[in-house]
């Protein structure tokens, strides 16, 4: 059984006990424990089930590479699935639940999958997706749906806060082990701005566990001294619990800081995502130990040798009483020594190497530990927990020579550098034959904006696995980086003394000649259940590219992203293909290094500030008067103002009828307003608009169209001549920023010698449309300026005051009624609106929303950008030829409109439509034509673009585009309706209301 030892545990505080629950069972740990350590201390080795076969899964590792110990953390709004127990810090009240099983961890019905294992071979999904179809629907899918998914999806919104933060530094160091600390010291001595980030809560990495000496003292003392020194330096920022997730173009780095996972409810943000720009990046990210592939290596109790050592040394926890060590290298002997020093039994060390000669084995031997060389684990015995190992020759086929009883198997297949940060942005790797791993190739690094090396691996991440080498390498690399920045280092480099290690020997399959039965029990990917036999099958079935084999088998595609399985898997693949490992290559390393919570990525963008919401100065009034708001870009505009039990449709109809009978108010503040001024402003606007604006008299308004260079309509609005050299261009609500940018683009990049300035003053003004036969009466009640027909005629404007407020009033109409649009400083917008409402009470004034505006403009046959246009419509299609100057030699879009296909007679052109039965044509309906097209669909001859019930006329009205346009007047055509019907409509003039303009021009 696994348990807490009486002594030891450098990271725990035995005076501070912590209570927590696992699957509702109350357990105790200590401050400083990880959840995994505390679970082991409570003899909870079984922590989950695998993804595919629901095999029992125990804790394998002690850090970020853990594939198995994934748990559901917390409850309710604090619930988070798939948290790694090995990196979860214990806190009082922690509630953890194991996942991927039903009904219980110990008794899982899904384990029956295991019996069907032979029906779930590599490429299962590929094969079942192909054939037979019926089997997929009735057999596989229901079966997979039951077992699919890892962990549970939260049911409540995340109750925690998250945020982003930006940071800048010259040198970023990822990893706070001894290599990272050494690199930080060197980098900091140059005066450069240094950021040192460590994913764990504690600093120093593995050196203290391994018992290295630095500068003649235990590593721990040196680490403490370095942290103190760095902490005093102004140019150094250090953050622990901050995982560097990825490196990107131009020195961009994302890091996930875990602030409050271990202190829930303390009011701090849970995580903070750091968005860092680093001049250079030093990846001192260490190395990960590899498992060995032997039969039964997934049984709970089989663990990485380094993890077994970590639990003893760091947490005073023994994974079991009797540990058999199996290794191909010397480093793993440190585990046997540590266990023996802690008073635990190590009945046997199985070393796959034929010769075992190093200092560490000698030390183990001297402690009385039995070592058997050239041997292999043939298979691990046990079900939910290891009960022993069967041993044979590594060079053999699996004949059992001996069996040993144990409850833990500590395995080590050698170490792989964590090359992720070097690789994320294009750094290439080389194969190191001696250490049997890929490491960064400093000759082919990722490069930055200057073409210079951007990421530098240091220490174990660079293949310098042992403490002394790692320290020296980090010093050298950091000095180089400082030199590249044109700076100088100061001070002496620390030196480490470690127990020397003899060479390792690669072992990819154990024993080397294992038969099919054994190979089908050798796990490579513990989480996704990928075995040696699966990779070999993939190779036989032709998936010889490492990227294909990965996807075919799902090797390395689990939440651990193959930290333990990738190298072993591709070594097996290379064996199956009979090619050297470097020729097979690796899969691509992609960020993040370990999963980053979605909440951290979202940062502040949630709830009220999920996205910017633009409000007009009268927004609060609309809300207070029950307006139904619709999004228009980022604005929220009042769609209608329902009263009492009114439906939206009823409200819209009331607003229209009232505006046509009395007077209505529309908040038009969102319209774009751009001032264009200068000696060349007229000439510029003549280029921008299809019609002529330069000859617009001062004091007058003119409707204008803008097209893109292809000739298609892009925006429209009323242009006002403010003075001799300045114009005010109104744009659509959505067009304000875009058209201002468009103007600046042409002025800056094409006609930069023209003297024109623009200013986007959209938000300076609130704008209110006062429309209806009583509009003038209403303004006269406010008092101030003369708004008579004579002083302020249709399409004119004037400046003055209304109700004491300085205003500019335009006689323009989008409703077809007598209409004034009043611009007032935004800070006075609400005041003017309220005065209009108050003064208009006895005139029947009512606010109207955007839908009433839309219907009224359709009744008048006015086009709307985005309804009648879709980016493929030219003004001529909309019978707007009158707004296109024939005189101008050039304007934006003129050449595009001259393309021959735009003059074809079969183009869809604008007309009005009235259904014969008075009904409303459905939105999006097509006008059907004779015959079918090549796809068997009905041919079309047009489509509806705007369609409404007109309360003014008491019937459906529509605008649409039809072949022949206004030449088709009187024709009766058919629009399709859902699901399979049609509705007949007559082609009519699109101006349905007040064709002579008598209402607006009074």
């Amino acid at each position, binding site marked *: 059984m696994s348990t807490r030892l009486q002594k030891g545990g450098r990271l725990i505080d035995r005076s501070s006990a912590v209570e927590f629950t696992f699957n509702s069972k109350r357990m105790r740990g200590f401050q400083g424990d990880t959840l995994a350590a505390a679970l082991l201390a409570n003899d909870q080795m079984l922590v989950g089930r695998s993804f595919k076969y629901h095999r029992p899964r125990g804790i394998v590792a002690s850090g970020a590479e853990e594939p198995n110990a994934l748990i559901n953390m917390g409850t309710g709004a604090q619930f988070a699935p798939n948290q790694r127990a090995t990196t979860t810090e214990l806190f009082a009240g922690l509630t953890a639940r194991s996942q991927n099983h039903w009904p219980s961890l110990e008794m899982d019905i899904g384990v029956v999958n295991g019996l069907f294992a032979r029906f779930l071979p590599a490429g299962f999904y590929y094969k079942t997706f192909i054939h037979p179809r019926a089997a997929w629907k009735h057999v596989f899918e229901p079966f997979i749906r039951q077992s699919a998914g890892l962990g549970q999806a939260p049911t409540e919104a995340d109750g925690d806060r998250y945020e982003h933060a930006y940071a800048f530094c010259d040198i970023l160091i990822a990893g706070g082990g001894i290599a990272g600390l050494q690199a930080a010291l060197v980098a900091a001595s140059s005066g450069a701005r240094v950021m040192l980030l460590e994913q764990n809560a504690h600093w120093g990495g593995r050196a203290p566990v391994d018992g290295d000496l630095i500068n003649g003292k235990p590593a721990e003392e040196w680490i403490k001294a370095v942290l103190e020194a760095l902490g005093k330096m102004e140019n150094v920022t250090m953050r622990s619990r901050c995982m560097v997730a990825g490196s*990107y*173009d*131009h*020195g*961009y780095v994302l890091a996930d800081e875990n602030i409050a996972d271990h202190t829930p409810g303390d009011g701090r943000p849970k995580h903070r995502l750091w968005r860092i*720009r680093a001049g250079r990046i030093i990846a001192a990210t260490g190395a990960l130990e590899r498992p060995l592939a032997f039969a039964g290596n997934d049984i709970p109790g089989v663990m990485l040798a380094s993890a077994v050592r970590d639990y003893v040394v760091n947490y005073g926890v023994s994974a079991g009483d009797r540990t058999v060590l199996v290794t191909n290298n010397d480093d793993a002997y440190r585990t046997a020594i540590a266990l023996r020093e802690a008073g635990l039994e190590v009945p046997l060390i199985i070393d796959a190497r034929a010769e075992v000669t190093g200092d560490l084995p000698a030390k183990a031997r001297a402690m009385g530990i039995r070592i058997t060389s050239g041997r292999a684990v043939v298979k691990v015995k046990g079900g939910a927990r290891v009960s022993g190992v069967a041993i044979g020759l590594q060079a053999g086929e699996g004949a059992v020579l001996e069996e040993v009883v144990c409850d833990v198997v500590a395995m080590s297949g050698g170490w792989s550098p964590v090359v992720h940060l070097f690789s994320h942005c294009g750094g290439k790797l080389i194969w190191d034959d001696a250490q049997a791993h890929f490491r960064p190739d400093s000759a082919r690094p990722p*490069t*930055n*904006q*200057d*073409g210079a090396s951007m990421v530098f691996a240091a220490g174990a991440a660079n293949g310098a696995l042992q403490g002394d080498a790692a320290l020296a390498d980090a010093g050298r690399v950091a000095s180089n980086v400082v030199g590249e920045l044109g700076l100088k280092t100061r001070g002496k480099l620390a030196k480490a003394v470690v127990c020397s290690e003899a060479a390792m020997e690669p072992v990819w399959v154990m024993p080397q000649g294992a038969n099919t039965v054994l190979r089908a029990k050798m796990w490579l990917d513990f989480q996704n259940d990928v075995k040696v036999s699966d990779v070999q099958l993939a190779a036989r079935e032709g998936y010889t590219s490492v990227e294909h084999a990965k996807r075919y088998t799902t090797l390395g595609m689990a939440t651990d992203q193959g930290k333990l399985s990738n190298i072993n898997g591709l070594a097996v693949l290379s064996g199956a293909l009979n090619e050297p490992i470097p020729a097979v290559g690796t899969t691509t390393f992609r960020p993040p290094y370990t999963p980053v919570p979605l909440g951290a990525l979202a940062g502040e963008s949630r709830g009220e500030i999920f996205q910017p919401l633009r409000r007009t100065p009268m927004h609060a009034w609309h809300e207070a008067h029950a307006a139904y708001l619709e999004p228009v870009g980022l604005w929220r505009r009042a769609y209608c103002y329902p009263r009492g039990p009114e439906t939206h449709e009823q409200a819209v109809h009331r607003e229209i009828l009232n505006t046509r009978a009395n007077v209505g108010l529309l908040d038009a503040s969102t319209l774009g307003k751009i001032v264009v001024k200068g000696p060349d402003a007229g000439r510029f606007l003549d280029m921008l608009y299809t019609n002529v604006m330069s000859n617009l008299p001062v004091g007058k308004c003119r409707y204008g169209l803008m097209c893109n*260079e*292809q000739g298609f309509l892009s925006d429209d609005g009323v242009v006002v001549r403010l003075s001799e050299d300045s114009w005010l261009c109104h744009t659509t609500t959505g067009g304000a920023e875009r058209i201002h*940018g468009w103007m*600046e*683009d042409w002025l*800056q*990049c*094409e006609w*930069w010698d023209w003297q024109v300035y623009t200013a986007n003053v959209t938000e300076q003004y609130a704008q209110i449309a006062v429309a209806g036969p009583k509009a003038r009466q209403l303004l006269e009640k406010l008092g101030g300026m003369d708004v008579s027909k004579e002083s302020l005629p249709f399409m004119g404007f004037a400046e003055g005051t209304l109700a004491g407020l300085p205003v500019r009033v335009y006689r323009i109409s989008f409703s077809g009624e007598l209409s004034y649009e009043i611009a007032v400083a935004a800070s006075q917008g609400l005041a003017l609106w309220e005065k209009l409402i108050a003064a208009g009470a006895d005139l029947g004034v009512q606010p109207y929303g955007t839908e009433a505006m839309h219907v009224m403009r359709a009744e008048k046959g006015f086009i709307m950008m985005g309804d009648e246009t879709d980016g493929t419509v030219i003004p001529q299609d909309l019978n707007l030829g009158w707004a296109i100057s024939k005189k101008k*030699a*050039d304007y934006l879009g*003129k*050449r*595009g409109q*001259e*393309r021959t296909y735009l003059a074809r007679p079969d183009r869809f052109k604008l007309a009005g439509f009235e259904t014969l039965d008075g009904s409303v044509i459905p939105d999006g309906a097509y006008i059907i034509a004779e015959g079918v097209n090549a796809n068997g669909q009905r041919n079309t001859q047009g489509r509806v673009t705007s369609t409404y019930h007109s309360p003014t006329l008491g019937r459906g009205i529509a605008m649409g585009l039809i072949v022949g346009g206004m030449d088709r007047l009187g024709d009766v055509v058919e629009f399709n309706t859902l699901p399979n019907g049609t509705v007949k409509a007559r082609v009519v003039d699109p101006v349905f209301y007040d064709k002579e303009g008598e209402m607006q021009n009074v």
Partner: protein
Amino acid sequence: MLILECPYCGVKADETELAPGYEAHLKRFGPSSSPEEFEAYMFARKNPKGVHFERWRHAYGCGKWFLAARDTATLEVFGTYPAQVGEPPAEIIAKIKAKRPDWKGFK
């Protein structure tokens, strides 16, 4: 995520402060142009793997358009310069030639 230095205000702008504007140094063809010229102006865009000239606007900064010479494969930036020029400045051409001897040149 790129960093480009705005040649107008000197800010080393983050990509999120910029708006892209596609290929630089296009010559506008207006009403009297041939169909071929107009087609090339409207639609024929270069998409090289390697040296490329492009337009960027310092949209969240000074609002100015500028031009950048950049390697689309390595993302190395050879330089940024104001938009009011017909072709890249000589020193940027020289810098690119020094760094990319195989480059066939701007034209």
